[in-house]
Each structure stands twice: as C-alpha cells, then as structure tokens.
C-alpha cells in the first residue's frame, strides 16, 4: 500500500491534462462557467437504467476513472433523485421500467434536465418496435439532450453534458 501511495505522490497524474487536449480543456472551462451561471454550483447527476444492455452504464462508469475524472468538471453522480439536477437515462425504456422512470423523474426538484443516452435512449435503437419497449426516453419524459452512440464513448458523454448546459441556458433564460 505504501508503495502505491508513494508512487501516487511522485508520478504525474494519469488524468489527461486539459491543455494537451483542447476539446477537454474547452469543456472544462465552459462547463464551469455555464454551471455557475445557472446554478451557482456544480451539477448533480442521477443515472437511471431503463432497460439498457449495460453497455452505456460501463462507459458512464468510465467517466469516473482517473483518465476522465468527471468531478474535475463539477459534474458528479448522486444516489438520490432528490439531490439531482440531471436525470441521465439509458436504454430503450422497457415497459417494465416505465413507472420507475416516471417516479424517479417526479422525485427530482426543479429545475431539472433529462439526458437520453445511447441509440436506445434516443429512439429505442435496435430494440425499437418491440412489444416490450416504449422506444426511447422521449416517449415517456421531456428530453433536453440526446447523446447517441452504441454506447457513446466517455468523451462523447462529457461533450454532451457540456452542450446540455449551454442548451439549458438558452431554453430557460
């Protein structure tokens, strides 16, 4: 353990430094400003799986690894919808999850945003047309942003969350 702690002190961080990656650098700056303008603090995200294959969840998890380190942008995941500003929904919305999705959304305080993640969240993806799915998050809730992909990469997810902040700014100003 001591070896790892020492190494942590002596090594350069693995987190991809913002200046070497213009896209993430721009993202860091804009996210901070937009979030502060809107809420005066960081954004809390509640993730909900509405029947995904688990692929999107894996990439959302990756946002917390040292390479992406989501929290440096002021974005973080919370356990309760009552603490959340953003509902990040994956999956084609299975009918068996519709009520749980609606109740989670209802439990969130205003103002709130809904982000549909993945091709499934967009329109049901390859599961569209099945008797068991609603066919995308917008069939059940008002969606502010879609981040497509199967699954979207962690980078695409970060970019998407940034553009949400800008879109929300315009919509509610």
């Amino acid at each position: 353990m001591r070896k790892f702690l020492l190494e942590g002190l002596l090594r350069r961080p693995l987190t991809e430094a913002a200046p070497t990656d213009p896209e993430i650098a721009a993202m860091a700056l804009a996210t901070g400003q937009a979030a502060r303008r809107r809420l005066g603090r960081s954004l809390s995200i509640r993730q909900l799986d509405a029947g995904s294959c688990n692929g999107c969840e894996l990439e959302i998890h990756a946002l917390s690894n040292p390479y992406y380190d989501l929290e440096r942008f002021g974005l973080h995941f919370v356990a309760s919808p009552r603490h959340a500003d953003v509902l990040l929904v994956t999956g084609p919305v299975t009918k068996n999850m519709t009520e749980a999705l609606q109740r989670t959304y209802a439990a969130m305080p205003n103002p709130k945003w809904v982000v549909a993640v993945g091709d499934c969240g967009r329109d049901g993806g390859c599961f569209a047309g099945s008797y068991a799915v609603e066919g995308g998050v917008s069939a059940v809730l008002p969606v502010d942003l879609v981040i497509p992909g199967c699954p979207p990469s962690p980078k695409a997810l970060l970019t998407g969350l940034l553009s949400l902040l800008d879109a929300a700014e315009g919509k509610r100003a």
Partner: protein
Amino acid sequence: MDQIETPMPQTFRNQPAPCQTVSATEWELAAVEAARGRFELFSLWATEDAVHMALRQHVSGRMEMLSLPLTDGAFPSVAAQHPAAARLERSITDLFGHRAIGTPDARPWLDHGRWGIAAPLGAAAPGPDLAPYEFLPVEGESLNQVPVGPVHAGIIEPGHFRFTAQGETLVRLEARLGYTHKGVDALMRGASLARGAELAGRVSGDSSVAWAWAYAQAAEAALAVEVPARALYLRTIMAELERLANHIGDIGAVCNDGAFAMMLAQCSILREEVLRAAEVAFGHRFMRDRVVPGGVTHDLDSAGRAAIAALMAHLRIRFPALIELYDGTASILARTVTTGRLASEHARRFAAGGFVGRASGRDFDTRRDCPYAPYDELTFSVPTRDDGDVNARIWIRIREVEQSLALIEQCLARLPEGPIFAPCAPAGAPRAGLGLVESFRGDVLVWLALGADGRITRCHLRDPSWFHWPLLEAVIEGNIIADFPICNKSFNCSYSGPDL
C-alpha cells in the same frame, strides 16, 4: 471425480444441432436425472409447438438436446424435479403461454403485466391485469423486510431485491427481475442473419464479443460454414480482451464494495487501457459488431497489433503489483475471506458457469471441455478452488487474467494470414445450430433455427446469469445486509442477459 483426458468431440460444433424427440416419460426422466447430477441442465426453451432441453452428460461431457412436442399446449414441468429450471420454465409460460404441468411455482417471471399482451410469442392475446407479485412467505419472530429497487443507488442495472432480516442477519433474499425485458426473442423472429447478429451482440453489453461469437457459431454450424483460421484467431483476441477488461474492472469494483477505493481507481486505469487498445486494434472499445456469422468485420493491422502487444507488456508489469496490494491488505481480506460462501454442491446442481462455479469446485470451462477452434490449438489452464467465498471468486478472476494474457500472446505469435470472412449462404431447407462460448461470466448458449430462406425462425439466447441469480440468493443467507453489495458484485450477474 473422473478426469477426462481428452474432451469428447462435440458433434454440434461443426454440423446442424442433433435433436432427439422424446416422449413425456423420457422428458421427465431426463429432469430427474438432471436433479440427480447425471446431466447438467444447460438450457430449457420453447418453440411454438415444442419445448427443448440442452443437457450435458456429467461423465462423458457430451451435449444432448431433447425435444418434446406439446400436448394440449402443455408439458411436464422440469422445475418440479430440478429447481435450476424454475425461472427458465416460468419465462416459457410468460412468452409462449405453454403450461408446465406440476410446476412448483406458477408466478409469472418476465411478464409484469405491462406489455399490453399476454404470451407475445404464442397466442399474443390482450394482456389481462396481473395480480400484484407475491413474494415467498417468510415466517419467524422479529423479522423485518427491506425492499430495494428496481432503481438502485449506484450506476447499475435495475432489479428488485426483497431482503428479510432478523436483526442484521439475512434470513432470505428473493430477487425479482425482468425489468430490462426488451423482447429480444420476438425481435429475432423473422430477422435476417445480420440483424440477428446485431441483437445478439447487445444481449449483455459487457459480453458483446462472447454473445456475437456464440450466435455466429450457431449460424455457422447450421449452415456448415467453414470460418477462415485468421478470423478465429482474431475472435479469440477480442474475446480475451473482453475477459481482461471485465475481470480487471470487477476485481476493482468488488474491492470498492469492501470500501477499498484504491483498488477500484488502480483497476479502472488498467481497464481503460484495455478498452483503448481494443479501439485502436478493432475500431470499437467493446468490439461490438466485429464478430459476425462467417468471420469478423475488422482485420488487425500493424498499429493494432503493436497496441495489443504494448498492452500485454504493460499489464504484465502493472497487474501483479495490484494483486500484491490486494493480498497484502488485511482490511480488505477481512471483508472477502469467508464472506458469501457458495457450497460446491449448489454450484454443481445449478451447473454454475464461469468463475462462480470454478471458485466452488466446478471444474468446467467451455474453452477446454466443449472446445471450439482455435482454443484446441492453444495452451492454457483452468484455475479452480474449493473455498467458494468472495475471496475465491476474486482469485479465480486474477488467475484467469493471467491465462488471458498468455492466450492473447499466443494468438499474436501464431496469427495466420488469409481471409477474415466466408459468406453464409442459405441452406435451402430449415436448419438449426447450437453455439456455446465461454464469456467472462460463464458459458453463453445460443440455439438458432433458420428457415429455408435463411431467415431466423427462432433464436434462444441463454445467459450464464440464469443459474447464478438463484445461487446468489442461497449465498447471502446468514450474511449481514451490509455484505450484500460485496457478495453481489463478486457474482456480478447480468440483468439484461437473462431478462432479454
């Protein structure tokens, strides 16, 4: 136990699936023998007018497939004899409407009364309102129930857990799943081979390669397609990269559920590096839609080869240091050792695949015991343990990481030249094939029936978690509620895979 030196050649590997039509009496006898341990139940599924069972003979290792035509829309319950069949059987009734005579549990499983139709693959009549789901009764003094889910606190798949505790100690866990049911069986019906491959690769997102490979195997067996050697080696590299990413990520995640966050951080670095190498080599982090019937869609170029070779060298240095960290930290071992012990008897009866079975003495790995090319040409060992606790499941995965590294290195060294794809022409007659592949979680089974035009008439996909979930319920008994997350993560069952 008898050790078989050379695994029996499996006829289903390179020809249409053999199928034996049996009488109701023989069907029931097979169920009894499965319960006794002469056969292992590999799957149970239905078509419009029959039910089918895949069994593996315990001694010879031979796979058998039995089919029983329905009588008045019903068949003798397998679950009545063999509990491992219970949820598969309940799903048959939900999806097809076939009744299981003598079933010990007539509650619906996948059908939550929200589809608007009943028996979507059978009569597909308007769905009646279902009564609220009845959990199994629990009797005793000072019991309290804790309902959890379907929406959980973390970023994980949805499912409902009903805990009954006496003080801190759990006396029963009952899971209710089906929340992620997407109707894949119905979408498969009438689909083209290519569309089927797209769906198969999305049964369980963490096992895209394994599922796509099992599906491709079933199609190739049904249509007698010879897959080019290079494609088989590329599939192996992808499958082992997938195993590496999942095992390494989960070792960290299990430790995180024991409040050892440093392991999660360190393991998530290595997992990310595996996914990045996969993207360089095969153009997608999860290598989705890369394995198709007939071969693979993406060849490995010199840059990809270099990325994988560099990853192997890197992991060989970094991974052992992490294992030393795990093994040298008493506070995490205090959480994992003796926690969530799965008895080998249970693992054997439920034919538990993957690291769950191998940590509890079930010495089975599809790659060795139902071998498929090119694993029969590669050298690897199958680690097993008998202690069956959270620690044992972590160690099996550690050992399997080491085996996967060796397998990828062998594949890179021997990678044959040549084409990566062979076309799959329709057979001109109905055909069926069986696929069986070792995913990181255990054996995934695909039974695929094709019409004369090459379109899918039925595709059955059986995830290893079908048999893991009930075992998790057994494992948790007598543990404290606070240890549920670490036990659960040490199994890491799929929700989407069995919910379909």
